[in-house]
C-alpha cells in the first residue's frame, strides 16, 4: 500500500476536486500506484475485483513467484473435442505470470483476481483471437483456479457487430462446462483446480485488511460445517428460506469441506 505524502495528498485533493467539477472523474479515484487493473493487450487484462459474495476471505496478499506460477499453470490442461490441450501457450504464460504475481501480491483478503487472456492460438496473425477467462485467488495455502472459458470465440462476432464482447469469469457458486486437469493438483470441481505447489505464501508485507464482500470467518472445521448444514436444513424446513437459497448455501458449505 502506498502512503500518499502530505503535499502530494493535498495536490491530489485539489486536482481531484477540479477533476470532479470539470470532468466528472470517477469518485473511486485512487493513486496511480495502486492499480487494480493491468491491460496487456486489447483483450488481455488482469484485474482485482471484490471477491464473490458469501465467499471465505482469501489469503491475500500472497507471494507467488512468477516462475512457480508459470511452472504450475503450464501443467493445466483442458478437455477439448479433439483431446487434451494446454490451457495457456508458453509465450502467453510468460507474459501473464509477472502481472498475475503482482496482482496477487497487491490483492487483499476481499479481492479475487480476474484473468482475461486472448491470443491467436492458431492460424498465425490471421487467426482470430480466442480467450481464456478465469478467476484466481489463494485459499487453504493453494492457488485456486476456476475457469469459465478455455477458447471463447468472441472476435468474429465482435468485429461483425461492433458490440463489445461480454466475458464471464469462473465462479465458486456455478460450474462452467470446462473440464480441467493437471498433475499435482486437487480438482475441487471439473472447472476448478487447487494448485498447492504454487507456493502460495502469504506476502510478508503489512497490508490492512480491505473491506470484504462478506464478514470474515475463520477457516471452517468439518464439525462447524455439519452444524451449519443442520441449521440450514432447519431453516428450509420452517420455510424461512427458499429451496433455491437452501441449495445455493448448501453447495457453498460443501465446497468448504
Amino acid at each position, binding site marked *: 500500500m502506498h502512503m500518499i505524502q502530505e503535499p502530494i495528498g493535498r495536490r*491530489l485533493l485539489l*486536482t*481531484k476536486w*477540479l*477533476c470532479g467539477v470539470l*470532468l*466528472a*472523474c*470517477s*469518485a*473511486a*479515484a*485512487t*493513486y*496511480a*500506484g*495502486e*492499480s487494480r*487493473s*493491468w*491491460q*496487456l*493487450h*486489447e483483450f*488481455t487484462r488482469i484485474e482485482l475485483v471484490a471477491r464473490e459474495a458469501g465467499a471465505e476471505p482469501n489469503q491475500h496478499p500472497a507471494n507467488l513467484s512468477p516462475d512457480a506460477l508459470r511452472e504450475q499453470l503450464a501443467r493445466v490442461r483442458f478437455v477439448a473435442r479433439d483431446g487434451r490441450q494446454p490451457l495457456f*501457450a508458453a*509465450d*502467453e504464460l*510468460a*507474459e501473464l505470470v*509477472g*502481472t498475475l504475481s503482482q496482482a496477487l501480491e497487491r490483492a487483499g483478503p476481499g479481492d479475487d483476481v480476474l484473468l482475461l487472456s486472448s*491470443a*491467436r492460438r492458431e*492460424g*498465425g*496473425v*490471421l*487467426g*482470430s483471437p480466442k480467450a481464456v477467462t478465469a478467476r484466481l485467488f489463494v485459499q487453504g495455502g493453494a492457488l485456486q483456479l476456476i475457469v469459465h472459458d478455455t477458447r471463447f*470465440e468472441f472476435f*468474429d*462476432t465482435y*468485429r*461483425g*457487430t*461492433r*458490440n463489445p464482447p461480454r466475458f464471464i469469469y469462473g465462479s465458486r457458486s456455478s460450474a462452467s462446462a470446462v473440464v480441467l486437469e493437471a498433475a499435482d493438483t486437487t480438482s475441487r470441481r471439473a472447472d476448478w483446480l487447487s494448485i498447492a505447489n504454487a507456493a502460495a505464501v502469504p506476502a510478508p508485507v503489512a497490508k490492512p485488511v480491505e473491506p470484504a464482500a462478506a464478514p470474515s470467518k475463520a477457516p471452517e472445521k468439518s464439525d462447524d460445517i455439519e452444524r451449519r448444514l443442520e441449521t440450514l436444513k432447519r431453516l428450509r424446513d420452517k420455510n424461512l428460506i427458499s429451496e433455491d437459497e437452501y441449495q445455493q448455501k448448501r453447495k457453498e458449505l460443501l465446497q468448504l469441506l
Partner: protein
Amino acid sequence: MSNLARSAVSLAASAVAALTFGLASTSASAVDFDGYFRTGPGLTAKDAARACYNLGISGGHYRLGNECDFYGEFGLAQTGTTEGVAWKAKVMFNEYNGGTDVGTSASSFEQMYVEGKGFDIAPGTNFWIGKRFYGRKDVHILDTFFVRMDGVGAGADQIDIGGAKLGVAYFGSDTGAGFGDAGNGLAKNPGSRFNIDVTDIPLNAGGALRITGTFTQGRFDDPIPVPTPVPNTHVGVGTSGFGLSLQHTQDIAAIGGGNTLWLQYAQGSAGLDGNFGTMTAESSVKKWRLVESLGWQVGELGGQAVALFGQHDQDVINGTAKYTEVSIGGRGSYALTKNFKLVAELGYMQKKPDGSETQKLTKFTFAPTLSAGPGFWSRPELRLYVTTAKWNDAANAASGLGGLTGLGNGKTSGTSFGAQAEIWF
C-alpha cells in the same frame, strides 16, 4: 512522392515492424496487428467495367457481391500498463481505390492516436488525442456506420456516471477517415465538432441505451458560390449544426444474436451519424432516420436483417430536394458443413424526392462460400457470387448520363459475377 510509392513505403514499414516485433507472439513487447481487407475480380458485361448497384441513400448499399472498390486497412497497436496507467498507441493505414482492384490505390493514415487510463487525477477515465475511428457502430451488410464520430480530436471517455459511461470529445475539421487521396481532394472547409456520448445506460434486461449528441460549426465564410468544388478552397459559408442519436441494443439469447434500433436526428452541418454532415447546409435543414437491425445464429442458420426509413429536408444551398428514403433487406447464411456455407442477400431501396418519380432498386446475390467456420460472422471467407439487380428509369435518370451502373447503356437490370475474399483479423 507518388501515392504508389507512399503505399509501398507504408506496406514495407509495416511488414518490417511486424517481423521486428513478432506479431504472432503474445509476448509483452508484441505489437498487436489488426485489420480488414476485401479483394477479388468481378465481371458485368463485355467491354465494360464491372457494375455495382446502389441508389445513394444515407443507409449505404447491400454489399454482398456488390463491391466495386478496393479496400484494406492495417493497424499496429502497442498496449501496456506502466505505474498504474494503461497506455495504448495505435496507427492504422488503409489502401483504397473507389473504382477498381486493378492498378494503383491511395494510401492514407486512418488512425494515429494515443490513449491512457489510470492517471492519478482520474483513474477511471480514459484520455486520448489523435486521429482515430471513434464510437463506431454499423450494420455490416450495408457497409454503413450509423454512429461514426471518426476524426482528428481529443477527448475523455469511460467516465462512470452511475452505471452508464460518459465520453466527451472535440474534433477538428477532418470530415471523415480520410478515404481517397489522403484528403487532398477534400474541400478545405474547416469546422469544429463537439460530441457527448453516453453509453451503456441500463434500460432493461439485456438491453442498453446510448445517447449521442453532436454540435458542429463550420469555420469558414466565403459567400461567393462556386459551382464545382475546387480542392483546397473554401466553398460557401460554414453553418452550425446539431444532432441527436438514440441507440438501443438488445441481446436476444434465444436467437443467438441481438437487435439494434436507432432513431437519429440532425440539422445544419451535423450528420446523422454523429460526424460532420454537409458543412454548408443551412442550419434550418433537418433530417432524421429510423433504423432497425436484427442479427441471429440459430444452429447452421445465421444472418442479419435491416429496415430503414428516413426523411431529409430540401437543401437550397447545395441543390438537393426534400426526399424520403427506404431500405429493407437481409443476408442469410446456411452452413452445409463446417467450412462451406450458402449465403444469399436480398435488398430493396427506394428514394422519393419531392416532385420527382420514386427511384427503386432491388438486388439479389447468391454466394457459395468457403469459410473458417460455420457461423455467419466467421472469417475469412472465400466466396463466388452472382448478383442480379433491377431498377427503374427514375433511378437511372437520377444517376446522370451513365445511369445507375455508370455503364451508360440505358438498361434497368443487370447481372454481375465474381469472386471475393473478405477477412478481418
